[in-house]
């Protein structure tokens, strides 16, 4: 696979994906889509969101790594993309922590100000 890849590198400025690789990625993504639909029917209870997000993250990483060529891309581009994900995690994480922390206060305030 690797010898094959380096041979292809001569074609341009960046890596060329072999057709077999493209098809393998496609079928992996379809398989994971089926998996996430099936997993949603299982009695995972509160962890359904965790299972769904783990599968979604795997799918997203597969797309980014091979379809988007990050595996063969410049480190700077990888850092830029990983940086955005880092800030998204901070944004989501802190917003959710904050929401969880003040949930009871919000509920109390809502009860006080409710028009009844």
């Amino acid at each position, binding site marked *: 696979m690797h010898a094959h890849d380096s041979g292809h590198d001569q074609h*341009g400025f960046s890596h060329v994906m072999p057709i077999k690789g493209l098809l393998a990625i496609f079928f992996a993504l379809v398989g994971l*889509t089926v998996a996430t639909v099936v997993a949603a029917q299982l009695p995972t209870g*509160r962890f*359904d969101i965790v299972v769904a997000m783990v599968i*979604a993250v795997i799918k997203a990483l597969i*797309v980014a790594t091979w379809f988007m060529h990050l595996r063969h891309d410049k480190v700077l581009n990888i850092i830029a*993309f990983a940086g955005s994900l880092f800030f998204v995690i901070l*944004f989501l994480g802190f917003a959710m922590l904050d*929401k*969880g922390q003040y949930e009871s206060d919000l509920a109390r305030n809502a009860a006080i100000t409710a028009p009844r």
Partner: protein
Amino acid sequence: MSSTATETAHDAHHFHDDQAWHLAHHFETPHQQFDSGKLGTWLFLVTEVLFFSGLFVAYGVYRMTRPELFTYASGYLDTKMGAINTVVLIFSSLTAAWAVRCAQLGNRKGLTINIVLTLMCAAGFMVIKYLEYSHKIHIGLFPGAPAEPGQESMWNFNPEWAPGEKVHFADDPNAPALHDLKNFFGVYFCMTGLHGIHVMVGMGLWIWMLIRNLKGQFGPKFYGPVDFVALYWHIVDIIWIFLFPLLYLIRH
């Protein structure tokens, strides 16, 4: 790095060859032009990810506030339609990546076929989205639709209530109020709507790429634009990969 240096020297000697027309005057070499374009595209994708993240935070806050509402409202979405659209988008990502391969190898016909396939998938996605949206609007789940039949609304239209759906409301003692359901559907329409706009923008970009390819502009020495449009297309696919389970697959 050494290959870059070799290529720089190489290109300097061939500056006037027939492939150099696409080299903008502010770049030294086609390779440098390609790398700059790619970095610019990635930086744009970073802003896209951050742009969408606001909606994901809104989703998280809403869902944490009313988890039971999200479970119930998600039942109004057709999982089959969502799953078909997911596969349609994944297939379009395959053809987009294949289009880049064709452009890199100078396969003009293959590039045309793959761009057309990508466009057809995008159109198919929007048609399914249209069917889903019209169903939701029909049963009064559009933001700003009247809370009850005949009531005044900001959109000034009366949705015809599908009898089956209405009975569904009335029969279920645990059914949330319609205006509560709209909390979920506000998030749903914003997220899928912004995503749909991105799909339509992507279609415009692919049409542009198709025209340029038919003019014979792309080849092994110049395929940057195809690569960059494909990167954008893949990020739109990634957004949908998250939207599908978050909106359609809430069961607990």
